[in-house]
Structures are given as structure tokens and as C-alpha cells.
């Protein structure tokens, strides 16, 4: 009796037997570098984030903690989870900011919100990019609580998607960090195409853009 062939070997054999045909390298004539000034880029980012019905606030460096406090007070939020290495000067004294101690999903569910930074932001699409860096924390903390306050330093805003992906390629190759791209709050349009903000992810996204 012939030895049974593994699924792997058989699939690879089927592919090989499909034959060979020429496939010239893909043409890449699309834009890979932006053309806006720093100020224009930051403004575009703010506009595009606001388009998703996220709240955008522009703040000066040094005023982040005050702004976070205002956001929390306005939303009656008293308890935030934060990444263990989050910058101390972003944490308002008046709000309980609890460092992530490896909470279970159920424990995270009891928090009102989460405060993080981000690695990059994309102006053209209004996207913030989380890569589990020190002041972003693991994926679950920005997912389970209902409010996400994200601090975006103007200097980490790029204009185009390719500019961001090239930076992310490095992070994945070197460190294999998980990546989450966030463009506005959770949403669905499943009922008669009416957009509803907030199904399972944070229903509110507040982006604080810090002037450099």
C-alpha cells in the first residue's frame, strides 16, 4: 500500500502541477511620500479623525494631564486603566489611573476607560496605530473598556498609509509586536446601513493631539 500523502505535500504538488507562467514584478507607481507641511498634516489628521465621530482635542505639551482630567470629568469617568510604562506627566492626579497588572478581561470590563499613547498616526485616513509599545500596553486594555483616550504626538503623524506601513514593517520584522490600527470608534452599519458607533470595541474614542 502506498504511504498516505500529507495534506501539505499534496497541496504543494497540486500547485506545482498547475504549471508555470510569467508574472512580472508588480508596478508600484502609487504615492509613497506625502507633500503636506507639518501643520497641514496635523490639521488633516484632526479633520479625518473627527469625520469618524471621534472627539479630537488639540493640546499643548505639558497640558495632557489636565486635558485627560477634563475628558474624564465631562464623561463621569473615575477609573482608568493605563499601561505600566505610561508617562507620569500624562496621568491626572484627580483620576484613578491604575497600571495594567495583567488584569483578566472581566477585570478590564470594570474600568471606565483606558489612556494610552500611540506609535504612529496616519493623516489621510485618520488612523492611530498601536503596536503594544511601552505607553500603549497589551491589546486587551484598549479593547475592553468603553472609552479610549489616545494621546497623539504631532511628530508621529505621517501623511500616507505607505509611510506608516514601512515603519510598521520594521517593527514586525525586528520584534513581531502585534499591531492594531484604529480609525474611529467601533461601528456597525448592519441595520439598514445606519451607522451606529460602538458595538464591541470602545464606544468612545477621544484623541488628544499634542503640539510639538
Amino acid at each position, binding site marked *: 500500500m502506498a504511504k498516505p500523502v500529507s*495534506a501539505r505535500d*499534496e*497541496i*504543494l504538488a*497540486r*500547485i*506545482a502541477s*498547475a*504549471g*508555470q*507562467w510569467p*508574472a512580472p514584478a*508588480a*508596478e*508600484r507607481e*502609487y*504615492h*509613497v511620500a506625502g507633500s503636506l507641511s507639518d501643520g497641514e498634516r496635523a490639521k488633516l489628521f484632526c479633520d479625518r479623525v473627527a*469625520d469618524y465621530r471621534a472627539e479630537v482635542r488639540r493640546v499643548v505639551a505639558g497640558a495632557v494631564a489636565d486635558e485627560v482630567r477634563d475628558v474624564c470629568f465631562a464623561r463621569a469617568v473615575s477609573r482608568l486603566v493605563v499601561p505600566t510604562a505610561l508617562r507620569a506627566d500624562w496621568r491626572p492626579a484627580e483620576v484613578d489611573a491604575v497600571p495594567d497588572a*495583567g488584569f483578566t*478581561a*472581566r477585570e478590564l*470590563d470594570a474600568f471606565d476607560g483606558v489612556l494610552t499613547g500611540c506609535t504612529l498616526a*496616519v493623516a489621510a*485616513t485618520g488612523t492611530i496605530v498601536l503596536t*503594544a509599545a511601552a505607553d500603549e500596553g*497589551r*491589546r*486587551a486594555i484598549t*479593547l475592553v473598556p468603553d472609552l479610549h483616550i489616545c494621546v497623539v504626538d504631532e511628530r508621529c503623524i505621517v501623511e500616507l*498609509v*505607505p509611510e*506608516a*506601513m*514601512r515603519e*510598521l*514593517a520594521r517593527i*514586525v*520584522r525586528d520584534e*513581531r*509586536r*502585534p*499591531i*492594531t*490600527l*484604529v*480609525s474611529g*470608534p467601533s*461601528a*456597525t*452599519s*448592519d*441595520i*439598514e*446601513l*445606519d451607522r451606529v458607533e*460602538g*458595538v*464591541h*470595541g470602545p464606544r468612545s474614542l477621544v484623541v488628544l493631539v499634542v503640539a510639538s
Partner: protein
Amino acid sequence: MKLEAFPDAARRELADAQLRANLRNATDTIRAKRARVVDELTDWQELREAGRGIKADVLANLGRYLTSFETAVTAAGGTVHWARDAAEANAVVVEVARAHGATEVVKVKSLTTDEIGLNDALAGAGIHALETDFAELILQLDGDWPSHILVPAIHRNRREIRDLFARTIAPGIESDDPEALAEASRAYLRERFLNARVGVSGANFGIAETGTVCVVESEGNGRMCTTLPPVLVTILGIEKLVPRFEDLEVFLQLLPRSSTGERMNPYTSLWTGVTAGDGPQELHVVLLDNGRTKVLRDDVGRQALHCIRCSACLNVCPVYTRTGGHAYGSVYPGPIGAILTPQLVGIENAKSLPFASSLCGACYEVCPVKIDIPTVLLHLRAAAVRAGAPRGERLLMRIAGFTFGSAGRLRAVQRAARLVQRPFVRNGTLRALPPPLRRWTATRDLKPAAPQSFRDWWQSR
């Protein structure tokens, strides 16, 4: 398995006025949104060409990219399984769930898992597959199935959904406001997410070079399913690979704009194997063939495997926007379904699908990866005829060939037609020919033979 013939299924679906109204409203809305955000990008055509070129490269070197992906996933702490067919893929998921004693798995909306009938296979093993996408949950609660790739419950309106929820997950719910309905599903699913031990997902892209898996979504249920459970199984069609991480810069521009008409979808998750202390600590990826290598053999048809499941071709199709997705009898509806399904299940089982098109070409124009759907449709129509056309049609075609073969015969037939057609011409159109020709005229306007042919006119000058 033979699919129901499209004309029969379409006739049934067209009779549903509610469906047609919901569908028309939805597809018109998405079309307009898509057009707006596509116009924003001055390099859209260049992005399409890059997308096409990258996918063509993947298919031409598929074996190499698959083994590279396998090596990368394994090196990053994941386990790769290969599945020749649906049964093998389903068996992997059942086995993983059993190994962890799970009686329920949480699922992200995935066409691939619909294609292989995963939920039924799990149910057969005593495991409940909980759909967590809002629309999929609606359909699952009602024993219905998707009618659109992107908005699967597009054929349901808010009152129908409220009544369904009142019967099932939210007794006593009165409001049919979408916000209230979304809140009900959030409350119902949150508990299940927090307790889930095994998550199951499809994937939009797999990156051959790094072993990264990419899931694109809106609601956050995808993040829940791929982040919270300690164990995650992802089913990946072998054609879903892209060579390098940077290739995502093309597809993450093409997909959301073509699909939901947004500049970017709310959430895109990318994970590369297991990350200590963050997300699932046991990862499985199932590489699924299930007919794809058969499609690969066809020089013309293989471009159907470029598809990134955006659904733009559905929303512009004059056939789909009237019949809806159920008429296509497969998880892949619309123009892309008409070329993909017959190739996956064999043309002999879906002979009528390549004919479910007016060949207007709108699908080709909007396709973000430039799949030449009309050409593939014609190619498959030829294959369907080779696989056996109805005897009557073959006879008619032979008679037509014989007639057109000589000028004298054509003239004689034209003269005869002018006389015979008289009782059937109304308002310049041939109506209600006697059977079996009635099957043609019942749904189409046929021009009668002209009072004078071009040849006659030429000779009379």
C-alpha cells in the same frame, strides 16, 4: 453538490418586494460612499494595478510563498495545518476545541468558514460556533444565511430585527432604533467574549515573509475573538497571502474604500505568532485549498483568486442589485461569485452562474484588483456549453450556423420570418413567442426581422 439553477432562484427572490427595496437602498448608498472616497485618491488606478500585480505574483509563486509563511508562523510560535478540503479544515478546528474542552467557540464573520460549513461541522461535534458579527448574529438567531458579503443581513429591516431579538436574546425589547439593537447585541455577546476559551477567525491577508495574519473589521468583535480567548484558530485560503509586509500599504488602501466606502475601517488587527502576555498563547493557522488549486490551473480563470472580498462588484451589478445574494446559491454571490463558485465546485454543478450577468463590465471597472470578470464569465460560459448545453439550444445553434452560412439561406429565412412574426410583434418588439421560444421572450425584448434587410436596400439603390 449541484446548485439550484440561477434563473429559478432569481425568479423566487425577485418576488420579494421588501428584499428588493432594502437591497436597492443599501447598494445605492454604498456605491455613492465608495465613489466619494475613491475619487479622493489621485493614485487610485496605480493602486489597483499594484494590487493586481502583487496578487498575480502570489499565484505564480504560491508554493514558495506558502512554505515561507509556514516557516515564519512556526518560528513565531504558531502551528500551521494544511487542509486539502473542507472536511480536513473543519477537523482541525474540532480537534483544537476538544483539546481545550470548549463547548462553544466565538467566531468572527468569515466567508471562508461559511464556505467550508464550519458551524455545522462543529455542531456535529457538540460544539456551538457563536457568530459575533452583528449581522451574522442576526442571521444565526433566525436560521437564515447571508445575502451580501459585507452586510450579510442587508435583506432585513429594523422591525424584523427587533422582533427577532425580542424572541431570542433581548426579551421585552421595544425600540427598533439601530442603536438600541446594537446595544442589545453588545450586552448579549460581552459575557460570551469574556468567557470564551477558543476563538475562530478567517483572515483578509497572510504575509508570507513575516507570518503575520491580518483581520480587517468594523465592530471590534474581530479584536475580541482574536485577542481575548487563550486559543485562536484562523482559517486562511491559500490565495490570501501577500509576499511582504509592505504590500499591505496597497491593500489597506484598496479594501476599505472599495468595501464600506470608508477611508479606513475602524479596526485592523495584525498578529505575528504568539506574543508573551498579550493575546492568545496558542495559535493555529489552517491553510485551506478546497478547490483553489483547481482554479489555479486555468490561465484565464485563476484571476478570480485575486479577490480580496470587498463586495464592490455586487453593489454595481444590475443583476445582483435586483436578485440579491441568495439567488446565487453560494456563499460567494454577485459577479465574483458567478466566476468563483463554478470554478470551486466544478462548472457542471453551477452551469447557470456564468450566465447570471449582462456583461456590462461595471464589476471590472470597480474591482480594486482589476479582475476582468466579464472575460472570465465568457470563458466559463464556453466551458459550460462544452460541459453539455441543453439539446434544444444546441439544435437551435446548429440551425443558426447553417442559416448564416449562406446568403441565400439567410435571405429566405428573413423573408419567411417577416411573414411568420406578424402576429407576435407589439410596439416594435417580439412578444410571447410560442413555446419553447417563449422562454426567451418572456424576459427579453427581441427585435423583429426588419422590413428590409441591408442587402435588399443596397440592391434597390
